């Protein structure tokens, strides 16, 4: 089975590390980290990804702008995007979904929830 790649865009090192820990439990999934939206775009320009996970609230470029940019990029316009949001920020979530996000995960994140969602979107057994 071919390697799959995932880009995690999250400004909080703690949350990023937690996501990487969770995703490390999925076999053959290679994870790349980005500190914010701009860093995320830079990483996207350097390679192709099968999945993108991004936080909404980030400095420099937030998750909403990043989703919009990804959907206008020919190379990644069809890549599934999972947004990380809080239960209370329904407006952000709705905007992100309208901009082209595929799914969302609410904070505080739970590893089993993240793993299940990623497996579902990547069609991994």
């Amino acid at each position: 089975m071919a390697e799959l790649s995932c880009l995690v865009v999250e400004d909080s090192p703690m949350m990023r590390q937690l996501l990487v820990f969770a995703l490390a439990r999925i076999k053959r999934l290679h994870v790349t980290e980005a500190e914010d939206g701009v860093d995320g775009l830079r990483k996207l320009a350097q390679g192709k990804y099968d999945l993108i996970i991004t936080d909404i609230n980030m400095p420099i470029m937030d998750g909403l702008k990043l989703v919009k940019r990804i959907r206008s990029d020919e190379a990644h316009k069809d890549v599934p995007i999972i947004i990380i949001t809080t239960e209370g920020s329904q407006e952000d979530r709705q905007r992100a979904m309208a901009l082209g996000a595929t799914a969302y995960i609410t904070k505080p994140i739970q590893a089993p929830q993240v793993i299940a969602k990623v497996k579902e979107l990547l069609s991994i057994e």
Partner: protein
Amino acid sequence: MASRAPIRVDRGSRALITSRVVSDEDEPRDGGRRASDVPMDLLKEREAFVRSFLKKGVEYTELLLRENRELREELDEVRNENARLRSQVASDDAIRDLLRTVERLEAERRALLDRSKQLERFEAEHEHRQAQIEQEMNDLANLYVASFQLHASLSVRRVVRHLQDMVGQLVGADAFVIYVIDDAAGRIVPIAHEHVEPSEVRALELGEGPVGEACMTGLRRLRELDVHRIDRSDPVAVIPLLADGKPVGAVEIVRLLEQKNGWASVDHELFELLAAHAGAALIAANLYEQAGGPLGALRHLTSKL
């Protein structure tokens, strides 16, 4: 078999035949008369007798043949019946064998059902245990990451940021304030807050309110019920930050995230971690910055060993 079938003879008919034959043989000895000497009526009588005798013989033969045929039929019936009974006995044996097989299969089925139920229980226990292990792994990962990030940084700003992430994203607090004790001023001052109105964030006296008490006593305060009620005089949680066992600050959780309906076991672990490590991490980062970097922070270290 059919050719040796017994011929039944009627006793009355045999007596009649015997008496007539004896009287016919004896006739010439009675006076030695010839047929021509016999009177006509006697001849007629003898002829009638012979005819009657022959007729009786034919009838008797027919009777015997009929009885023979009937007996053969009866014999065939008996044979058929015998064959039927034999096959029935055989089929009864087969049925008994089948019943024994059914009983054996039923016993096997019951044993398999018991085994299947046992396996189902085992599988449910296994799934439950697996879920528990998953949760424990998740909790351990949270604790490890929180601890790692707290101590990975020697910048006060970053340590405070990690504290905020820990309280907000790992514990699930929506609104909270982080305080430290300002020893010089003898007060408790807020150093960071989230989703609390700035006008409601102020310095406190030692012993003032739940936060002031926690900073004096070093005791944690958790509201177990009604966790979504917002009341600054009775916050949902106040976690003192300790260094060397002494309070150096506190985290006041004002409001939890909507989806969080109570405290999980990992929350208590995170509070332990906060209490034991956050104060030390803040002190280390502060001293590090005051010393102007790693080498400055190590100055005079050898003299203390």
